[in-house]
């Protein structure tokens, strides 16, 4: 279609662009899918997912690639946010314990009294552990959480033995695994792992924006969705080596093999269809409600958190 | 030559219009700890317009304090200060004050230090500096115009301060030991310059000095203050020596010596008394 976008110049927010969590964004950018759609997208990178969401609410950016749970939380706060395409179907979060303490912490139920590293207190890595603890009859009060970030410092703390266990993402996990420092307790990067933990999908990264934006700029939204959809399709067939060729050289962790290993580990997490299944939404909500009193009280209409019409159109037009 | 009247005068006797009228002044300092110290008490001093009054007194008796009160820098704890009949509130805008302590602007050269008084009064900076140079010449410092204060000797700094005050041509001149760090000859030259200036356009002058000869040679009236604390004026002498005077010549006159001897003896007793008082812990 030769329609032109209402708003061809866009600003997009993301909390940590080089993370594998947001790989589809980098692919869309580097492969020129935005340009193809006639969009000029400026990518603003933030100190974290929360900051990019705040920038969206504040009106300084138009769209965000961020965690799906944000759309649920914002509904509870009376902010109209809607996601239009799923980028990651699994959270990709992994719970590991230090190798030399693996004897002591064989399973999740043994974690009582452990010091557990999370990227930040209150972040999804934290909730992930909370959820696992609850399933195993423990409560968050039974362990101590420490924010260690998602970069080199997380690796450092694990290696130094400052923490007993850690819930984190790639490439931290792959780095620790390849160095042989940790043992995995729960892995949400794989199909089987997710089946075991959630009994299905649990959407991770999505593209979301204000509902008003979608109403006022349907064509632009469509074009954006198209671009991301193409990136997902590309990822479906690409090998990790292909990915390594596309992303900027700096992203390669200074160690190509490590990067390839990380991409390989993360590949199953990327969404195949771009559509969030009903069960996925319920899983996400279920996890949040468990620990957030504010959400427990709120009435959430999950249908309002995701608008699948754009992905469906994209799937029709893009082969 | 007219004989000098040597009888002590009583305050308030002057018939001219009063440039400065200090009445019943008491000045009490309060320390941080609340301890009080009364420097002067019950001081009445009137300076007529165009009158040259020298103030002499033992060290620490409150001379500087009185000048500060006249300048409006210090509010008396009791009594009133009136300038040309009007009660003083805030700063005394008609007075020029040569401080006892160092008060030049360290960040300005000598010529700028002198010119500043004109500049703030609105004189064109170029002209102000030209006149400042002229004044530096009068105090014998032409060659030092571009020096900063820290590059000048003690006596040179004092003379820059003198020029700084005089260039503004104030109606009332307050001078606290202006010739202190000067040698005898420079003192005379400066004294004569001051007298010439004063002769040309009569100003009210309050001149603090420790040199009784200088006081007699310059002034219309010499005021003697007693020893502190709570010091007061203990005597006044009208100096009837003829004008215009030349400082070095007037010292040769017999009337000068008669006056000197009389005031001297009055002063001497006071100082010894003050010395004793201060020596006993208050």
């Amino acid at each position, binding site marked *: 279609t030769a329609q032109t976008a209402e708003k061809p110049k866009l600003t997009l927010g993301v909390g940590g662009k080089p993370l594998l969590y947001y790989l589809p964004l980098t692919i869309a950018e580097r492969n020129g899918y935005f340009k193809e759609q006639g969009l000029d997208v400026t990518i603003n990178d933030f100190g974290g997912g929360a900051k990019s969401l705040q920038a969206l*609410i504040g009106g300084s950016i138009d769209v965000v690639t961020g965690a799906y749970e944000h759309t649920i939380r914002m509904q509870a706060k009376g902010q109209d946010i809607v996601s239009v395409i799923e980028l990651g179907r699994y959270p990709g979060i992994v719970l590991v314990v230090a190798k030399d303490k693996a004897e002591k912490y064989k399973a999740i139920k043994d974690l009582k009294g452990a010091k557990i590293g999370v990227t*930040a*207190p*209150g972040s999804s890595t934290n909730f992930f552990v909370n959820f696992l603890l609850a399933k195993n009859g423990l409560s968050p009060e039974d362990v101590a959480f*420490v*924010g260690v970030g998602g970069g080199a410092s997380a690796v450092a*703390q694990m290696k130094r033995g400052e923490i007993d266990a850690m819930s984190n993402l790639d490439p931290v996990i792959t780095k620790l695994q390849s160095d042989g420092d940790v043992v995995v307790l729960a892995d949400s990067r794989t199909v089987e792992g997710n089946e075991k933990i959630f009994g299905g999908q649990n959407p991770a990264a999505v593209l979301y924006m204000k509902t008003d934006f979608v109403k006022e700029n349907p064509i632009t939204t469509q074009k954006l969705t198209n671009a991301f959809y193409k990136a997902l399709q590309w990822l479906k067939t690409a090998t990790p080596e292909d990915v390594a060729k596309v992303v900027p050289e700096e992203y390669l962790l200074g160690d190509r093999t490590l990067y390839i290993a990380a991409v390989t580990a993360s590949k199953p997490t990327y969404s195949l269809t771009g559509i969030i299944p009903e069960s996925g939404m319920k899983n996400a909500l279920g996890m949040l409600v468990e620990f957030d009193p504010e959400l427990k009280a709120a009435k959430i209409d999950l249908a309002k958190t995701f608008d699948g019409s754009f992905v469906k159109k994209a799937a029709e037009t893009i082969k | 030559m007219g004989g000098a009247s040597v009888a002590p005068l009583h305050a308030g006797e002057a018939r001219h219009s009063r440039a400065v009228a200090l009445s019943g002044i008491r000045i009490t300092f309060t320390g941080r700890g609340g301890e009080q110290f009364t420097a002067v008490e019950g001081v009445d001093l009137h300076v007529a317009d165009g009158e040259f009054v020298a103030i002499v007194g033992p060290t620490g008796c409150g001379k500087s304090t009185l000048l500060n009160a006249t300048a409006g820098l210090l509010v008396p704890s009791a009594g009133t200060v009136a300038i040309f009949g009007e009660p003083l509130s805030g700063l005394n805008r008609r007075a020029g004050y040569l401080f006892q302590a160092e008060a030049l602007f360290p960040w300005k050269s000598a010529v700028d230090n002198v010119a500043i008084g004109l500049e703030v009064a609105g004189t064109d900076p170029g002209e102000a500096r030209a006149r400042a140079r002229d004044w530096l010449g009068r105090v014998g410092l032409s060659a030092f115009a571009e020096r900063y204060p820290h590059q000048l000797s003690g006596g040179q700094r004092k003379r820059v301060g003198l020029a700084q005050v005089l260039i503004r041509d104030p109606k009332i001149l307050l001078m606290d030991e202006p010739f202190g760090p000067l040698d005898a000859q420079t003192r005379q030259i400066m004294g004569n310059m001051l007298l010439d200036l004063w002769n040309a356009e009569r100003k009210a002058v309050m001149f603090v000095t420790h040199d009784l000869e200088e006081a007699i040679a310059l002034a219309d009236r010499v005021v003697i203050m007693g020893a502190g604390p709570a010091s007061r004026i203990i005597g006044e002498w009208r100096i009837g020596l003829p004008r215009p005077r030349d400082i070095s010549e007037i010292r040769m006159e017999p009337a000068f010596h008669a006056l000197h001897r009389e005031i001297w003896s009055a002063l001497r007793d006071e100082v010894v008394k003050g010395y004793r008082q201060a020596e006993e812990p208050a």
Partner: protein
Amino acid sequence: MKRARLLFLQVLVAVVLIAVWHFGSTVKVPAGIVSQKAFYPLDPFFFSTPLAVFQRTWRDFYTGVIWYHLGITLLETALAFVIGAAGGVLVGFWFARKQMLAAVFDPYVKMANALPRVVLAPIFALWLGLGIWSKVALGVTLVFFIVFFNVYQGVKEVSPTVLANARMLGMSERHLMRHVYWPSALTWMFSSLHTAVGFALVGAVVGEYLGSAAGLGYRIHQAEGVFDVTGVFSGMLVLAVFVILIDAVVTAVENRLTVWRPTAAGQS
């Protein structure tokens, strides 16, 4: 009398600020005046409301959960302040007395001052672990430079005549330090300490914010992660109140140590 009036005015300022905040975050500007839609001048999503913040703060104190975190943060702040200030004073004195040393290290000190502390946080965490010491280190890097530059300048500002006199009175370097440089640099030092108190707290909080298990920064970060603005502001409120208390202590010490200065109005 004067004290009462001052207090009244100070409270007035607070009342006005809080009123602005309150009305800005609870009363909508009707549509059509400034923009198409009705909106809050201070969107409560970003600013919460004063009432909510006070309620939360009160609750935190009432239930006691805040004390533990506050204690940790104050400990870090105090340590950062003491270590940073002591270091700044010592090195400042030392550099001021050793001209060559100062000249050689000058560019490096300035470089170090310009490194973004946020980036250093992971390195501190690496070296010092995740306990309080990595936060203290962050605070120290802020406090140190502020105090250092001021003390350095303060020592160099000593009146040359007074210094010459001290030396003629037979003072050794150590005596000069104690009887001349120290008292003379005090004003400078205290001026810097007032800034430094704030920065010590900032360092501790930012350190906690970037990775920790306790403290006010941790709580603020946690609140931020779940978009709990009320929690964020409540944390900042507590911070602000405590910095005033610490600063009051600094001021008291300052007044004690500088009794010798002329007061503005020396006479009654």
